[in-house]
């Protein structure tokens, strides 16, 4: 027989669906099925209890193979590594709870580390732009209830945030939008005819990398000023048409993603997009929102913000917090050889950083805290498996619109496995002992 756990948070992406229903065996030990999740969330739950799950820490041997060690040995190696490093990097944080992030920050302050999260390769450039020009935004329920003009710029939610459009942005029937998608006009700006673009009323197949120009053209078009015949491959007539369509709405929203944060103009793209939003507020109500990737990268930015005052790339190595993207960001630090130890948690730089950075991680004392085997774990000196947040342990998480939701525990972790928070707490306690002796 089975029972169903309801109101479960999905710990995958920034959409942070909280309406999952997980069917477990009567004894509450085994996940049998998942309802309401997208394919990715479902896989996360169903795969959490795979037979080949790594259950104990593994230490890299001289010949490159890995040997199982105890959690105590793992705690010792980690504490020693952090205590002995002059400038360690503690990176990731995006796939774990705020409670764990908080303990990690205590450790970082103690050992003088740099704390950086996955925004560094995702929406870090957004954060820089916001620090220049601010950001007019709203919660996702405002979109559901009010928005009738939706602009997806440089993002593909059909693939990256699969339930976003049905839960918030296109299909829901809200208080003032009771005709659902029939009330809404959708524009997609993307160099490919993506699965998201296929659902749009307008697709602007922009010349890749020329978003800054097209954003500027939109800002010109809404003022009715002169434009050249084409901008970024888009004919001016279509730009004017889209501008009028955006202005004629009651409530508009721009969702944006990696297409504009990671291409060459980086933070300048986002600056321009935010200024476009601000300009549109002269005609009608408009907001803008970043499509955050990991389910708790926003949380990492929040916790780091209230504890240190900065959202990512925070350097604590001088005893007080400093922030300077380009100087204190992970990839720059690794490439320039400025860190002497790497602690990774809740992320996979081995797969998602340029390979030149990964090479540096593989050459340094390194610890990878992750339930999975990943390219990071397989080049780190120590791999520490932990419980899945949102599946095997609860914890607070922040959605892409900054709304905090407390993840639930659905099943127990494997026998004897620690959670992120437990492992970090033990490392913290060991560090107290080590650093007192010094």
């Amino acid at each position, binding site marked *: 027989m089975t029972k169903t756990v309801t109101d479960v948070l999905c710990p995958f992406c920034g959409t942070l669906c909280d309406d999952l229903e997980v069917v477990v065996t009567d004894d509450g030990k085994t996940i049998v099925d998942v309802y309401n999740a997208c394919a990715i969330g479902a896989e996360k739950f169903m795969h959490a209890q795979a037979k080949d799950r790594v259950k104990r820490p593994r230490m890299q041997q001289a010949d490159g193979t890995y040997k199982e060690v105890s959690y105590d040995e793992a705690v010792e190696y980690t504490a020693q590594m952090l205590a002995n490093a002059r400038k360690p990097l503690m990176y990731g944080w995006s796939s774990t709870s705020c409670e764990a992030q908080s303990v990690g920050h205590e450790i970082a302050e103690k050992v003088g580390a740099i704390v950086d999260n996955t925004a560094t390769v995702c929406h870090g450039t957004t954060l820089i732009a916001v*620090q220049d020009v601010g950001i007019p935004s709203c919660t996702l*329920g405002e979109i559901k209830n009010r928005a009738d003009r939706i602009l997806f710029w440089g993002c593909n939610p059909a693939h990256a945030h699969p339930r976003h459009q049905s839960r918030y942005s296109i299909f829901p029937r809200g208080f003032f939008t009771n005709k659902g998608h029939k009330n809404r006009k959708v524009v997609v700006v993307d160099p490919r005819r993506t699965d998201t673009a296929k659902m749009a009323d307008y697709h602007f197949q922009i010349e890749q990398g020329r978003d800054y120009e097209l954003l500027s053209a939109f800002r010109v078009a809404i003022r009715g000023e002169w434009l050249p015949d084409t901008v970024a491959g888009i004919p001016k007539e279509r730009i004017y048409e889209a501008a009028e369509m955006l202005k004629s709405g009651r409530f508009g929203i721009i969702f944006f993603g990696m297409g504009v944060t990671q291409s060459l103009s980086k933070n300048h793209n986002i600056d321009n997009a935010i200024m476009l939003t601000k300009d549109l*507020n002269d005609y009608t109500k408009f907001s803008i929102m970043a499509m955050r990737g990991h389910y708790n990268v926003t949380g990492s930015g929040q916790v780091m913000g*209230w504890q240190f005052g900065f959202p990512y790339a925070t350097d604590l190595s001088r005893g007080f917090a400093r922030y300077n993207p380009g100087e204190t960001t992970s990839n720059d630090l690794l490439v320039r050889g400025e860190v002497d130890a790497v602690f990774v948690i809740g992320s996979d730089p081995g797969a998602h950083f340029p390979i030149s950075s990964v090479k540096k991680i593989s050459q340094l004392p390194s610890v990878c805290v992750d339930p999975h085997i990943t390219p990071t774990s397989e080049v780190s000196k120590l791999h520490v498996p932990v419980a899945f947040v949102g599946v095997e342990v609860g914890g607070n998480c922040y959605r892409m619109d900054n*709304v905090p939701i407390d993840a639930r525990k659905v099943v127990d972790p494997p026998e004897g496995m620690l959670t992120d928070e437990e492992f970090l707490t033990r490392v913290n306690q060991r560090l107290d002992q080590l650093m007192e002796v010094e």
Partner: protein
Amino acid sequence: MSEYLIKNGFVFDPVQGIRGDKADVAVRDGTIVDNVSSGAKVIDAAGKTVMAGAVEIHAHIAGPKVNEGRNYRPEDKLFTYRPKGKGSRMAGGFSIPTTFKTGYEYARMGYTTAMEAAMPPLFARHVHEEIRDTPIIDEGAYPVFGNNWFVMEYLKNGEIENTAAYIAWLLRASKGYAIKVVNPGGTEAWSWGLNCLTVNDPVPYFDITPAEIMTGLMQANEYLGLPHSMHVHQNSLGNPGNYTVTLDSLKLAEKIRPNNKFGRDTVLHSTHLQFHSYGGDNWGNFESKSKEVMDYVNKQKNITIDTGCVTLDETTTMTADGPFEHHLTELNHLKWANIDVELETGSGVVPYVYSPDIKVCEIQWAIGLEIALMTRDHMRTFITTDHPNAGPFTRYPRIIKWLMSAEARKERIESFKHGAKMVDATYIAGMDRELSLYELAQMTRAGPAKALGLANIYGGLAPGMDADVAVYNFNPERSYKPDEIEKAFSAAAFVMKAGTPVVVDGEIVSNGNKRTLWVDAKTSENPQVMRDIRDKFLKYYSVNMNNYDVAGHFLTNPRVIEVDAAR
């Protein structure tokens, strides 16, 4: 058992009517007592001023807009950082300090309790996480109700009982303390880019006026008998000529009688009144209307106010008055952040420079002080800066200096660029009133505690009250220079929180054991309201109802104030 005897200080305690007499304060196990044994640890307060720990009734120190301010202003951290100490975390930020710094700086000034001024209920978990990371001081938070869909719909139909049931439910779900109202109706209008600028402007679609919202919420507050009164930030904040809207709002309290078991005898708290006491009709003829407003406040005994004094710093404004913040960014073109919150409220953040070279800022500075100086009942006027809106709370000692010394005010006015014009537009130059330490104790301790319904716990040194005690290096019987006031109140000689020493010689010595205050109002069952709540979660909210309320593990040492509101 832990005993302390704070000896020989000049005590200022409005609760016991002690006006600077030399007296001893005895503490046992966290509470003030009549006397202690000879084994008590003696704290020598000879030649020093002794007061209860101060109570901050309105500051923006924990939550999503506060943190947006921190994250989008890295420059606010420059040159402000203090490295970690033996028992303290590293701490930085000027106008929006990190949570650690917030706790430490309040404690160093002798503040031991603080209320977060505006909590959007959907983000309550965030507010409580920041409260947890704010050391030493007890805290509570006010959820906002003035733009809430449930409230507007019930009040449109005159359903006070249902409004009250919803309020009780929301206070419990968000672990909140009081009914906060910000720009009633106007912030819902802002979700369409509109606003409500007078008390009679109807809210789009909901078709209810700010006057009806404020009146209904006051009635619901007294129906429930909550410890604090309705706490309101009126419409039209910051606009020249807005004092008429302020008076219209304050007059709504005339018909309401206080009803509660907490000793509260007021029904409306009007916050940061400085921003709402403006005359003229443009920035050119902008002038102070503090006299007109305070004439009314002094007469109308059932309201309390806090000043919202301008400190003349570069600071960060942040408020749930979303349309105001948009207006401000159009004025000063500094970066604007905005967060509209579904079904509940909105907010905005914009940096602002209160420059002593700008006439309008000079007048704003004067208005805040005039409000405090014109006060007749110092138990009904409280000192704030609406941190960080009019300035950082770390400037309280400077505000105290200006209030206690006409000479310091004169010096400040003489160095203004537009002193002559500013004097013409305000009352301050003609005022030589100087507040006494007793009056300041009323305005920062006993008064706010009473308004919050916590007069038996905080704000005084009577036996039975919490042992929150502050000792300052200030001798009221010796002559002093005004700057010595600011120095003494910036870094207390000794601060004790719930019987634990937390500050010694201006330095933090312990993180204490802070508590979270929230109000649990028990009402009769109301199936209709519960059905309405379930309905709106199903249809309009973007989170599930079962994921909305703040679970117990988010609260640090909860101190629940229970209200029996069942009928």
